[in-house]
């Protein structure tokens, strides 16, 4: 029903192998850029910084495409780059392992259009605040699991840790969120 040609994810593998690095960046931009920016926003809570991090990842992808030659591997590479880039950006911001920046009046959770609306955000405020207070690794595990809907193995890959660590970060993160989630409407 939708008019656009297939843009998201998997063209046939032999086609993918024939892509130049430029083709790969174009195709993977179309398929994943927005999703990765949103992921980075959840990790960083800063839209311009999130776009920078994701753009860095695509530039890096272009450089490494000759070695990847596979859309799934490329997506894994992009995710890992975004998680690492977000960590670096947080460090640069002077917050080593915990995002506790004082809130400015305009520092509301990102909402741009009518798609979800401010009302929904109000409803979720407690939960989002609690997510933001999590230590970085726990927040990564939680965001990749419950926003990215990734498997443990994929999360481990993106975070550069073992599956066991993912499990422990995620369960500690969920435990910390439990109270606000129980109170959520």
């Amino acid at each position, binding site marked *: *029903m*939708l*008019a*656009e*040609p*297939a*843009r*998201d*994810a*998997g*063209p*046939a593998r032999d086609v993918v192998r024939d892509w*130049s*690095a*430029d*083709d790969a*960046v*174009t195709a993977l*931009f*179309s398929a994943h*850029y*927005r999703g990765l*920016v*949103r*992921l980075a*926003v*959840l990790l960083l809570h800063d839209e311009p910084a*999130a*776009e920078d991090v994701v*753009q860095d990842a*695509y*530039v890096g992808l272009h*450089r490494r495409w000759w070695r990847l030659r596979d859309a799934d591997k490329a997506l894994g590479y992009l995710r890992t780059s975004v998680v690492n880039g977000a960590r670096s950006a947080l460090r640069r911001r002077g917050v080593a392992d915990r995002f506790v920046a004082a809130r400015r009046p305009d520092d509301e*959770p*990102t*909402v*741009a*259009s*009518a*798609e*979800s*609306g*401010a*009302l929904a*955000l109000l*409803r*979720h405020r407690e*939960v*989002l605040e609690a*997510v933001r207070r999590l230590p970085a690794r726990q927040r990564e595990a*939680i965001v990749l699991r*419950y*926003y990215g*809907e990734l498997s443990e193995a994929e999360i481990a890959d993106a975070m550069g840790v073992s599956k066991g660590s993912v499990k422990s970060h995620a369960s500690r993160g*969920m435990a910390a*969120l*439990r109270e606000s*989630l*129980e109170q*959520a409407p």
Partner: protein
Amino acid sequence: MRMSPEDRLRAALRAQVDTVEVAPDALPTIRGRVEARRRGGGWAVLTAAAAVAAVIALAVAVFVPDRVPPSGTPQDRRPVAPATTGLARPTPPPSVPASTGGPVTVQLPVYYARNDRLVREFHDLPLTADDDTHRIAAAIGEALRHGSAADPDYLTLWPDSVTVRGVTIDGRIVAVDLADVGPGPRSGTPALAVQQLVSTVAAAATYTSVKRIDGVRITVDGAAVPKLWNAVDTSRPVRQLPPSEIYAPVWVIDPQQGQRVGRTFTVHLAGIVHEGTVNLRIRASGGTAVLEQVVQLSVGAPAVGEARVPLTLGPGRYVIEAYYVSVADGSVQGVDDHDFTVG
């Protein structure tokens, strides 16, 4: 129905970022950085002129559309300047950068009607100049053009004769000047036809610096019209009606029609249905159902709920169907279906 803590967490995270827009010039920016690195003499396998030409040839803005139906009237709008009568003169287009020569193709959302409800497609639309007004005007032109929908079941409610004379942006009000609107809509109610236009403008505006509109001021031949087709109050800017009144109840957002996905992919559904309960079915090319399950959306009617369902399927062609079962009589309602290919 009380959601699980995990689903509440999912809903919260999505609510925070589902509206995040990306910079319109992101892809050109990435290409520029790649090109700068090439010129910098580092990794130089692709420094051939052909590769440079390929970058230029591919320099068309690509946008990944928002995939969730709008969920309602935003609550935090700031007051806007009082509306003026008729069309305001165009202000300089705000911050969407103009293309650097040559036609630009931008993918924009376009609304149509099916079974007296609005549905959406994304169309690649050529623009002579890439700015806010051209984007919105292109989306409107497409929505109103008979036969422009990709799905044969979708149609515009506007008569063949209608044309768009101009679009101007005045704060959060978009003024649309039409001509030859005829005596009434092609089909459906006049109110829904106007909402088709308003929804298209509102959706297209999210791809501009306007982001969020407060209403659409409709004029005909440059003049204010108190009641379009003697039926719809157009004496003031028309606002979008609540989604539950105008949108189709179930949407398959991903995979899209004709899409090719990897073996492991995520189905993205949205809908405005009772208790957020939607049925998902995937059929193989022979028609055999390979998956049937009930999916719980993040929230029930009248809000727009969402769900993402990770799936793994073998290579082949499939049809994905989403629908809801009528509480009243158990009948299947609101089917949305897309063909897609795995592998």
